[in-house]
């Protein structure tokens, strides 16, 4: 540790939204050449704090002091992706090079800087003129990072940059972050993946309920102490729970995927999932694993192959058809297709099962509430909050509602796409518990995940994918992390 100059400091910042207090007297210093991890459960106030630093929202009181008066040397990579869907890759990166005054866009002059930023973020070969909307989520996240890099700022804030990424990209992001810190920048790094904190950061600040509860060099912490700081002492027991992988096999239904292909996405994918099991598809961006789960639930035009639930062919069905056949889906993109943000929790939870909360086409309020409460308890969501609009919940709770929405339909097969993206460790264990419980009721669970830790906690079987093809299938208990990662990186063990 040579560089100790403070590049940015937050002093006594307070912030409330309406009557709800988001930040209370927060003071933190960010030092030159350091990666500073900012941790805390969902709703702890991390994003609020960094948005105040990035001048997206204003503090009620307190100050942010940077080396430049207008803080123009602070760049931010947002948690809710801020890449603009209709603009091309080039235009999106160019936006962060824009100076305050308007004028003609110097396309040629920017080209090399844009390329450079994209390459460091791991998007070296990308077509600059593709609209961002057409990119898969993970590439959009990398693009978001590229935007932060392009502006060449002294202080770079990354709000959950790796939430949507798989291990390879994560490693790449880590490399970039390390080299930026080595160049003498200050990096603020927010994450729910506690493992990477120890790998990457020099310093840690933990927030809880809008307050700083711990702060110090990374070496002062270990995993257990971090978790205690984050969740408070009373939460401690729940987190380290190891799940019981035994289940009742009787009378289960079986999902059989045979030689499934979608042009340009994946090819000849086959596997079986029995009721009571959790099977995870594991692959990195572009491996086609997430496309497989979308295809199962009726989102792709299949080129060949079949999907059967017991003896019923369900491969040609639309989303509506597959839902009717008993396949429920939890999308990776919470805001766009996961929940109805302005509708109440009740309405979200009952949206897929309207017939069962109505009589003769007329909704029965009592049934709706009863169903919502029972589903809420299954996903460990506070029953007393079911009348709130989902938009007013924290990210973790929103994700619980998205999953609850699928659970409410009592599916034979539950398909999830990145179910715990951006969810804190406490809420995450709640979600795993709910999914395990579901599996033990003979539901076949298929999950796409890019997180090894998640596989360990959640899955019975793992199918690795590489470049649109399955590599191999394992019981999760009989394979090492190294082997899994190697398979998705190289296509062989």
């Amino acid at each position: 540790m040579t560089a100790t100059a403070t590049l940015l400091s937050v002093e006594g910042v307070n912030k409330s939204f309406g009557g709800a207090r988001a930040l209370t007297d927060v003071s933190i210093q960010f030092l030159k050449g350091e990666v500073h991890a900012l941790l805390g459960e969902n709703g702890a106030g991390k994003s609020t704090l960094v948005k105040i630093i990035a001048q997206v929202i204003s503090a009620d009181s307190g100050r942010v002091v940077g080396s430049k008066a207008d803080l123009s040397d602070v760049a931010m990579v947002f948690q809710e992706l801020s890449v603009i869907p209709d603009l091309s890759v080039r235009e999106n990166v160019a936006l962060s090079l824009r100076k305050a005054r308007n004028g003609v866009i110097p396309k040629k002059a920017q080209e090399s800087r844009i390329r450079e930023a994209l390459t460091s973020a791991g998007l070296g070969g990308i077509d600059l003129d593709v609209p961002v909307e057409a990119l898969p989520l993970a590439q959009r996240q990398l693009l978001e990072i590229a935007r932060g890099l392009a502006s060449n700022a002294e202080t770079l804030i990354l709000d959950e940059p790796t939430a949507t990424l798989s291990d390879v990209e994560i490693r790449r992001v880590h490399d970039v972050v390390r080299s930026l810190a080595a160049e003498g920048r200050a990096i603020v790094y927010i994450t729910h993946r506690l493992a990477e904190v120890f790998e990457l950061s020099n310093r840690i600040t933990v927030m809880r309920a809008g307050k700083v509860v711990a702060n110090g060099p990374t070496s002062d912490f270990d995993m257990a102490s971090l978790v205690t700081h984050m969740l408070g002492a009373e939460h401690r027991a729940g987190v380290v729970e190891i799940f019981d992988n035994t289940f009742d096999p009787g009378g289960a239904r079986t999902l059989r995927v045979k030689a499934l292909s979608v042009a340009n996405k994946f090819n000849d994918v086959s596997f079986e999932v029995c009721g009571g099991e959790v099977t995870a598809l594991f692959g990195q961006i572009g491996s086609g694993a997430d496309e497989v789960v979308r295809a199962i639930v009726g989102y792709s035009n299949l080129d060949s192959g079949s999907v059967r639930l017991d003896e019923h062919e369900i491969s040609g069905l639309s989303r509506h058809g597959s839902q009717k056949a008993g396949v429920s889906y939890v999308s990776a993109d919470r805001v766009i297709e996961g929940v109805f943000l302005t509708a109440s929790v009740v309405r979200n939870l009952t949206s897929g099962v309207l017939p069962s909360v109505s009589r003769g086409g007329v909704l029965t309020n009592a049934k709706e509430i009863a169903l919502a409460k029972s589903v809420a308890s299954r996903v460990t969501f506070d029953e007393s909050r079911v009348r709130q609009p989902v938009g007013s919940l924290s990210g973790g709770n929103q994700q619980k509602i998205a999953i609850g929405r699928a659970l409410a339909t009592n599916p034979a097969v539950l398909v999830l796409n990145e179910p715990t993206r951006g969810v804190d460790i406490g809420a995450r264990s709640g979600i795993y518990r709910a999914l395990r419980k579901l599996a033990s009721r003979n539901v076949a669970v298929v999950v796409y995940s890019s997180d090894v830790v998640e596989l360990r906690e959640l899955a019975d079987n793992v199918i690795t994918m590489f470049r649109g093809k399955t590599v191999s299938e394992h019981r999760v208990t009989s394979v090492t992390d190294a082997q899994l990662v190697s398979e998705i990186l190289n296509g062989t063990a």
Partner: protein
Amino acid sequence: MTRTSPAPAVLTDVNAGATTGRTRIRALGEWAGDASVIIAVTTVVLFLIACLVVPEFATADNLRALLLSIALVGIAAVGMSVITIVGRLFSLSVSATVAVSTIIFAGALGLGPWFALVIAVAFGAVAGAVQGVLAGRLKADPIVTTIAGAAVMIGIAQIFSEGRTVAGAGDASVFAINIAGVLPMQVLIFLLVTGVAWWIHRFTVLGRKITLVGLNERAAEVSGLRSWPLVIVAFVASGALAGLAGALLASESGQGNLQLGATFGFDAITAVVVGGISVKGGMGNPLNAAVGAFLVGLLSNALVLVGLTYETQLIVKGVLVLFAIIITGVASQAKNGARR
């Protein structure tokens, strides 16, 4: 240094919502949508003011005339609102549907007024269904679809009517009676239509599905809902109600022609927008469209009675509409601090 606050419009958090204390208001407002509640309150306040200060306003005859002046546009607006709520903006073929229905009603009047009414409504429903299939099943742009629909309807009607007025060979006075001597039939139908539409929207599975699709079509799809049948339902409802408005309009004079109801389409859009129904879909209720129609009709009526000239009426009406909309904006912004 201390930060100054940027414009409030840039607040970005998707978590925007009410404080806990306001949660109850929010839950209350959920069925009506925030904006529309304010508009409804504004309407009531303006109504009371008009009763107190505008001479001749609070007479039975004038109130009946006021209701009659909005009944038909109101019916068309309630239909239009379903399209807006399901997230398909507006139908620009309402005027054309109304005009063609007047001709159909007049043409069929010889077979009895109720029969003619049913035929006109059925025509509207079919016309709506065709556009609904385009806009729903084939995912065509609703605005273009309905512009095309209007062009085709007017074109065909012109060929058949040769542009002439069709005089009905029958008596349509049954639609001009006053129920119990006070409530005009047209107004009764308008209230019934509004009530039924509100009830369906609020209490039935169909209404809920339409709302959910309007709120977030992709999320609805993830839940296993199909959007296109609901879009078709919305267009059928809008078409049928435009047909109903046309039939009642034709019944006033027992005649139909292509000039009748020319202003209905735009007036219905105005009612939907002024009523506070979100053009983004899912927020608001058919009742709000009826309130919007009432508000605009109320303004027109009161301003005439105050004795303003036509141009002054329009200017004042424009300013008041802007004002009502701004109040809505200020109030809902105060509530969640976010854009839209």
